[in-house]
């Protein structure tokens, strides 16, 4: 199968936030460092996926591991940037629930041959809702310019990523049943928006706040 150019660009774009994050590592707060860890982990996952695909091994289990790391990292980051008790409690409960669901789903089939629509959809919806809530919280509590705050850029990137892929993820296997070409066509959304999101994530590391 011919891999489109945008897929290569998208894979390479994951290096941008990872590298920028490492560059500014010393002056970053702990939640931001957690995100740097996640972006570097994503780069490793991309490489692993590529190697496994070339070896003809199913790499869905790697995607599942990436999913839980993504969820926990973003939740940790968002929770540290919100000081409202209700928001924080809701995020903690949501995280615990998701971890339990993830372990339950994965324990039934640790090496699946199909995307887990359930894990992906729940994670995307939860992160989308939390990103919207955190950006609203930021807007209502912030005194200064929002664009000078790292949380704003992370929220924007997260909202863009999760809103663009939530429907595709939830119907991924149905589309895959129509043919890999159809899936690839839809996946252009994911590639395109992940390039933009990675630039937005990298932008967040340039903020002083």
């Amino acid at each position, binding site marked *: 199968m011919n891999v489109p150019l945008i897929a290569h660009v998208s894979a390479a774009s994951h290096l941008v936030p990872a590298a920028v994050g490492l560059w500014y590592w010393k002056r970053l707060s702990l939640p931001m460092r957690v995100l740097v860890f996640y972006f570097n982990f994503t780069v490793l996952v991309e490489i692993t996926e590529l190697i496994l695909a070339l070896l003809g091994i199913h790499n869905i289990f790697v995607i599942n591991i990436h999913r839980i790391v993504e969820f926990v990292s973003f939740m940790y980051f968002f929770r540290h940037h919100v000081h409202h008790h209700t928001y924080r409690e809701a995020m903690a409960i949501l995280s615990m629930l998701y971890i339990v669901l993830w372990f339950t789903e994965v324990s039934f089939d640790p090496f699946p041959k199909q995307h887990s629509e359930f894990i992906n959809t729940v994670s995307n919806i939860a992160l989308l809702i939390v990103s919207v809530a955190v950006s609203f919280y930021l807007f209502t509590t912030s005194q200064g310019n929002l664009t000078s705050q790292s949380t704003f850029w992370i929220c924007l990137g997260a909202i863009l990523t999760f809103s663009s892929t939530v429907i595709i993820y939830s119907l991924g296997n149905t589309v895959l049943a*129509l043919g890999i070409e159809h899936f690839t066509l839809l996946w252009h959304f994911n590639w395109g928006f992940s390039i933009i999101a990675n630039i937005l994530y990298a932008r967040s590391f340039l903020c002083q706040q």
Partner: protein
Amino acid sequence: MPTITEHPLLQIIIISTIVLVTLALGYFAVIITSNRKIIAEQHSKIEEIRKSEERYKTLFENSVAGMMKFNFQTWAVLEVNQTLLTMFNCTTPYELQRIFIDLHFDSFYQISKMLMKYGTVDVFEIPIVIKGESPKKLLLSARREGKTEIAHGVVVQVNTQKNE
């Protein structure tokens, strides 16, 4: 490569994704616009305060009446204009403070009491005798700053010799 028109499911997914992304970006556009509007309003208010402060400063420095900001419990002079310093023949706020403390304790006690109770003092007469100078009569009006011990006062000198 298939086209999006090939299957209705693809069309539904693409259209709903576009709608969702548009909503998300619209939400952010609203947030950014509102934030900029709030910041612009804050800047305009700060500018207004700065101008008002400048006007007050000009008035304070060029007033023909003596003006001061003081603590009405300790009679510490915090700010004073040149007119009031000249009126008492002194050069620094501290010197003026010393004069206030040394002279007419009773009058100052009454002023403190009135400021504490009513928050204002209107045209309070203070007879003052400074060594080597003829007796003076001052009229003080003051207003307390909120619930603090700070007050802003205006002092004018009355020529007592004419009356006598």
